[in-house]
């Protein structure tokens, strides 16, 4: 018995191994996406158009949604075209979607029966499934800054390494929160397809809500959204690192996983 790993570790490892290939593909696609945008930058910056004046004409809610501060610098360009869109929205939604299918999927397919017929606590399953997605989060946030840095150099620009590292370091708590949202929904909704869409939809709705209320008197209500606590534009353009936001996101992650444990402990596995 003692030579066996802790169940949560075994579950996380098995899950992460199963995702290895998919994770590499996603990292590759996002790298290609990033490099594609970077390739556009030289022609934009030399076109002689005042892009900053252009984006300033956008409605405040739109500027808020896409974190538009400045777009003509390489930092501003990357923030708007890649980090606000791909890193905040696309990867966030993808992680919530993936996590949404974990526990609900296992229950529906009967895999959970085999897991829980072994001496495994329900808590171990939830934690293991959460941790199983952590390597993907880490891979994305380790591989992409390297790609971004090399890409920026390749188009003949310079970018502060510190800011690039920070935008990814601060993305980790945000992405973990997205995973935790998915895990929590996965214990609440029994059909995996629905759970995936609810997790994705909930995160997107929160993002929209935050964007809309940002320019109203109720801006503080927007703090409910995980997207309010990760601002790649502020990091890249202004060099502002929101450590409080990161702490809030880590706390939210812990609470969401704890809720998932409590919920899953009581649940009937009715696949």
């Amino acid at each position: 018995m003692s030579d066996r790993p802790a169940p949560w570790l075994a579950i996380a490892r098995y899950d992460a191994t199963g995702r290895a290939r998919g994770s590499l593909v996603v990292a590759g696609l996002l790298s290609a996406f990033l490099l594609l945008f970077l390739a556009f930058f030289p022609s934009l910056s030399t076109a002689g158009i005042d892009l900053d004046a252009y984006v300033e004409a956008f409605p405040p809610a739109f500027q808020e949604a896409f974190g538009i501060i400045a777009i003509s610098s390489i930092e501003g360009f990357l923030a708007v075209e890649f980090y606000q869109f791909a890193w905040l929205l696309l990867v966030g939604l993808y992680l919530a979607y993936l996590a949404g299918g974990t526990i609900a999927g296992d229950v529906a397919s009967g895999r959970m029966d085999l897991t829980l017929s072994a001496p495994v606590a329900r808590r171990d399953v939830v934690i293991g499934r959460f941790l199983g997605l952590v390597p993907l989060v880490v891979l994305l946030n380790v591989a992409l800054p390297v790609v971004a840095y090399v890409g920026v150099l390749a188009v003949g620009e310079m970018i502060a390494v510190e800011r690039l590292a920070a935008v990814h370091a601060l993305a980790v708590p945000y992405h973990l929160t997205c995973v935790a949202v998915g895990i929590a929904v996965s214990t609440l909704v029994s059909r995996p397809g629905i759970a995936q869409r609810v997790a994705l939809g909930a995160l997107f709705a929160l993002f929209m809500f935050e964007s809309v209320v940002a320019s109203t008197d109720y801006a503080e209500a927007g703090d409910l959204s995980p997207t309010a606590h990760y601002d790649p534009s502020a990091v890249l353009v202004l060099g502002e690192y929101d450590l409080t936001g990161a702490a809030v996101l880590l706390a939210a992650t812990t609470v969401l996983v704890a809720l998932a444990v409590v919920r899953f402990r009581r649940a009937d596995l009715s696949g």
Partner: protein
Amino acid sequence: MPAIECRDLTKYYGDVRGIEDVSFAVEDGEVFGFLGPNGAGKTTAIRTLLGFLSPTSGGATLLGRDATDPVESRRARERIGYLPGDPGLDRDRTAAAFLDHQAALRGESSRDELVDRFGLDESRRIADLSRGNRQKVALVAAFMHDPDLLLLDEPTSGLDPLLQEEFAALVRERVDDGASVLLSSHVLGEVAALCDRVGVLREGHLVAVESVSDLRSRGGKQVRVRVAEEVDRADFEVRGIMNLRVGETVSFTWTGEYDALIDLLSGYTVLDLDVVDAPLEEAFMTFYDGDVPGPTGSGSGGTSGPDAAGSGAVDSRGEGR
């Protein structure tokens, strides 16, 4: 200490009854069969025992531990093997990867031996395996940690006859080594071949618990006889005869004593006589007619208890470890 003790176990899904007031015990070293049609509650009972479903009321112990307490249940599951009829396996992983994972969760003292015995190719992706081979993967996972208690839910549903034989042999070996078994099936032959006692589930109720040998004797004898004389059907319409067919040969099910049968046939010149056990289905069907004969009666629940080990039950054995 019984391997399983179930006390008034009840599980409702909202208003829908899964099982109600199910009470029985599986003695140490015994093979107990759950028999009933699909939807009778066999799977619900097993999944409630394993803690996948929390009972609406009642309780159960597995290997002496409270099955409804998460910590106790987990301790019991150290020594339990579970084989579902349609196991959920990761289709995009290889059998080896899946079994490695299962081994990390429960141990694998006899994995290699089982893989060899059932001729499983572990290197293949589970999605590429036939249904029978997928069932083998689940079978290895259920047996590889040498459990003391096996919960087998429709275990042979995907196996071909040859493998069913091998599976039955494996179960018998494990029982000889001291394991106890709860096996569910809607195939009477399978239950009869393996089990000491049978519990009949109908619409969520355990309507009877019988030893297999009692059930067999209740089923009577299938008699086929050819005689030299012309047969008058009325001569055979006597007490103890059922399903009478008169033609070139006379065939019927005989539920009376042998002497009475010999008396009946003594008036004829018997050219050919064939007496075999009647198919158990006939004895079994009586449970489905709502009329359950015999001393165990037809009440729901309470038809058995820890003391109800039938004559077919093997002797209790010591703990396997």
